[in-house]
């Protein structure tokens, strides 16, 4: 199936954190995505100059033809500051997708899921979490999520709500730079001993999805294999140097 550029219209904008925003796009005729997939966005300036970037889909497939993209603002970037500062409801740009067939989870498997996120690496994992809740999947799911400070936690309220619902979702936060008073959770970067403690609770049969800055993904993926998961049980999405 050919991958064609389609016109998306922005229908809503929502601030998630001071540096992270969600854009809801309406894409007529959009093929339902698989949780974990992304889209390519193409912006064309008046002089014909084009810039293209990839952004993960945050919403569940059932929301189509509405598609949520959650975008972190990267200072000095070409596209993310534009999406943050310039785009208003009603704007249009080109998208193609959904893209990817490896870093995806369809909800059919009942194997325990381990999701490991650094910063905005939580976005494609949130599509999995939302899909899992919507289809009533029985797969136990643990999200280990590293953020710098409490205000940097993306989807904080929704994650709290979903975890409190008792549907087999556990959310474990680690806050690497600043913790609220009385914080009893992790306060360091994700490492092997932390993953070992998490795995002791989920069991090593988990299918793991790891997404975040490359150094975090590298450490997490290597640790998970060291802790007994087969490499084929660990799917990774490194997104480069952008920090968590």
């Amino acid at each position, binding site marked *: *199936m*050919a*991958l064609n550029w389609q016109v998306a219209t922005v229908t809503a904008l929502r601030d998630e954190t001071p540096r992270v925003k969600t854009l809801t796009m309406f894409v007529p005729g959009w093929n339902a995505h698989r949780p974990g997939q*992304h889209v*390519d966005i193409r912006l064309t300036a008046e002089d014909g100059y084009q810039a293209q*970037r*990839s*952004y*993960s889909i945050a919403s569940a497939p059932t929301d189509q033809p509405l598609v949520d993209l959650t*975008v*972190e603002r*990267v*200072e*000095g*970037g*070409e*596209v*993310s500051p534009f999406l943050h500062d310039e785009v208003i409801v009603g704007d249009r740009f080109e998208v*193609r*997708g959904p*893209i*990817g*067939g*490896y*870093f*995806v989870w369809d909800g059919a498997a009942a194997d325990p899921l381990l999701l490991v996120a650094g910063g*905005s*690496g939580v*976005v*494609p994992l949130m599509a999995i979490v939302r899909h899992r809740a919507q289809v009533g999947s029985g797969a136990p799911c643990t999200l280990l999520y590293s953020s710098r400070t409490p205000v940097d936690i993306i989807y904080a309220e929704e994650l709290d709500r979903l975890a409190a619902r008792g549907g087999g979702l556990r959310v474990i936060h680690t806050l690497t730079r600043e913790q609220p008073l009385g914080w009893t959770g992790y306060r360091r*970067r994700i490492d092997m001993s932390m993953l070992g403690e998490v795995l002791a609770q989920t069991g090593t049969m988990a299918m793991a999805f790891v*997404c975040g*800055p*490359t*150094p975090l993904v*590298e*450490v997490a993926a290597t640790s998970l294999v060291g802790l007994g998961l087969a*490499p*084929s049980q660990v*799917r*990774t*999405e*490194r*997104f*480069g*140097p*952008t*920090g*968590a």
Partner: protein
Amino acid sequence: MTDQTDQVDQTADTADYPDVDPLTLDANAVAGILHEVFGSEMTGASSRCGHCGNRAALGTLRVYDRDGPGIVMRCSTCTEIVIRLMRRPDGSYLVDARGAAYIRF
């Protein structure tokens, strides 16, 4: 996946992981280009490394996509080059996949 070519101050973070090349990506990052070139979704396609024989989804390949016109994709096991992809100025692509024993899709 996020705004990959944008970079922020990561001196402190990356210094904690001296052995990690912070610019390494997964093949997922070029899934759109692979789809364009091969005409179908490729990251789930299975392949065999021509160097070490590792069998895995193309999505496991490590991707190095810097400022140049080329994209280099390496085996996650032996780190040898499996596929090289070059965007040509006329919009066409040059694909060198001699590092793959096969790609099934």
